């Protein structure tokens, strides 16, 4: 698990200059359409899009999906599923993934857990990308003291180990919320942590790119024609940021999902009894460490987490490949 915001993303960043979308085989298409065509021919990427759509549907339609499987709701306790020692029972016909330590259906909780994972992953990433892009644009375009100030702030944030910072903020805001009620305990705090720890990476990437675009001929041409700064940012620079921002967003989602799960695992994330994968793994872990063989409620939420994160990573990897940034464009 990458515990600092997306290392793959940094690999992508490390591989340098703006992508040269050079495709010797297909000469007559615009770069956008070439990237699109590449992506569509990447079977793994297409399948991961399918998985992501399926996951989103499961999350949105969770109550319906739970009904289809005919299991009890995520917070319904089934006392009859615990044996006389109070130990949970494993997979069975009525509870395909077994039940947890207090008799709740694991399948239902895994299904509902997708809601939290995707909510935090997607909303946290959107906030991070908006904030990071704004900061990176200002810093890269204006340079000077604005850049020093903004990028200095970004450097300070990057000095903190993400998981520990999240642990601290989760603890500080978990009790009564933060920022005058703007950040509520639980979900609000988790989204805040995720956005706070991932926007610096977006800001860095955008700043670097804007700083290099600023010197390119087409920007100089616009400037010499008398275009205002706002127009140059909006019409000349922003369109060139779109493709990388989409790739980085897709790669940030899985990192943020993992961070959410880690925070909930450490008891500073989503508040019980809301179904959450990290929390389920934490409860299962305590059970396993005390010698119980209740593997099912350790294994299933973990697999859900793994597949979700992997789907986004594979899509992001495919996008990198389509942009010619993976080093195996014709592999």
């Amino acid at each position, binding site marked *: 698990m990458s515990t600092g915001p997306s290392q793959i993303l940094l690999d992508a960043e490390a591989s340098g200059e703006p992508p040269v979308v050079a495709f010797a085989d297909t000469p007559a298409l615009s770069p956008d359409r070439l990237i699109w065509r590449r992506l569509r021919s990447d079977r793994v990427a297409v399948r991961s899009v399918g998985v992501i759509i399926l996951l989103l549907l499961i999350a949105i339609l969770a109550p319906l999906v739970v009904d289809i499987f005919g299991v009890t709701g995520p917070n319904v306790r089934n006392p009859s599923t615990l044996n006389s020692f109070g130990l949970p029972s494993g997979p069975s016909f009525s509870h395909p993934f077994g039940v947890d330590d207090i008799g709740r259906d694991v399948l239902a909780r895994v299904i509902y857990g997708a809601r939290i994972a995707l909510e935090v992953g997607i909303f946290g990433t959107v906030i991070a990308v908006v904030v990071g892009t704004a900061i990176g644009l200002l810093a890269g375009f204006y340079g000077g003291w604005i850049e020093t100030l903004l990028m200095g702030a970004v450097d300070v944030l990057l000095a903190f180990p993400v998981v520990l910072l999240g642990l601290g903020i989760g603890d500080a805001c978990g009790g009564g919320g933060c920022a005058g*009620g703007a950040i509520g305990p639980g979900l609000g705090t988790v989204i805040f942590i995720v956005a706070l720890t991932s926007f610096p990476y977006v800001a860095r990437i955008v700043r670097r790119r804007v700083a290099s675009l600023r010197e390119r001929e087409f920007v100089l041409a616009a400037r010499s024609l008398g275009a205002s700064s706002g127009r140059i940012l909006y019409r000349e620079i922003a369109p060139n940021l779109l493709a990388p921002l989409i790739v980085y967003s897709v790669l940030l989602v899985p990192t943020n999902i993992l961070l959410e799960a880690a925070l909930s695992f450490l008891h500073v994330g989503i508040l019980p009894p809301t179904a959450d994968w990290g929390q389920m793994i934490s409860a299962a872990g305590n059970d396993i460490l005390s010698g119980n063989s209740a593997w099912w409620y350790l294994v299933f939420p973990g697999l859900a987490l793994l597949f979700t994160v992997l789907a986004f990573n594979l899509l992001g990897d495919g996008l990198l490949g389509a942009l010619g940034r993976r080093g195996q464009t014709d592999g």
Partner: protein
Amino acid sequence: MDRLTAEAEDDDLQMASYTVRRILRAILLLVLVSVLTYVLFTVLPDANPPQSVAPGFFGYMKDVFLHFNFGYNHPSHQSVLSLVLTRLPATLSLVAGAGLLSVALAIPVGVIAATRRGTRVDRVAMRTALAIISMPVFWLGLIVLYLLASDVGKLPILPGANSYAGLTADPGQWFKSLILPWLVLAASQAAIYSRLLRGQMLEVMDQDYIRTARAKGLSEQSVIWRHGAGAAVPGVVTALGLDIGALLGGAVLTETVFRIHGVGLLAYHAVLRSDFPIVQGTVLLAAMFIVVVSLIVDIGNAWLDPRVRFA
């Protein structure tokens, strides 16, 4: 001779100037990291968590920088700094071992994937790496314990949770108890570095000097390992130095799973006990630690590679 001496002096001067600039920057970062900690943990929360440093911003900064007071734990009558220092050897053992292991695992995988670019071997290796990166470290740790731990495992072969012993107290037990945590913490980092190394190898192998090495008749093995990997691996080692934060974060989770009494478990237990000063002090100390480590990495890099000094 004179010119050479002058150039050497010039070099020393540049190195000295770079070092001074970098140290000043690190000091500024230390101050700003403390300011941010104050804002996040004292100003931002609505329900004020208990503090154990002097009240007010300046009291806090004075405590941190003049008295090295990062908070105080009343029940145990210990300062947060001394608590963290007691726990540091365990965390450093875990992080250093996992860091080295991740690079050691990444080198063969990255190099072989790069030399077999586009083949099935390459694809399988890179997709496996992606799957490992996608795995939550705490889940991997628990699965490994469930399968292999000597107390609760199905195939009890290695010491599991709560078996850590200090290096000086019992070196054998120290090593054995860390095998699983090292592997678990190293896994995702190793996967990341093998992808990184593969990319860098591909770039390096396109260079002219590789063609020269081949042209002068060196064996392909020698070209790949000595000239190719030799040039690509230092980049990965630098990445490791800069990823110390990710490793520390992973260590919090690994220590929690394996019940290793390091700094991470200290912070986690403090959260469970609502002992906020310890949480806050640990976060600040960890950030300061990272600032210092990246200072050392940067200066080391500049010392090895003169080009860095002009950055």
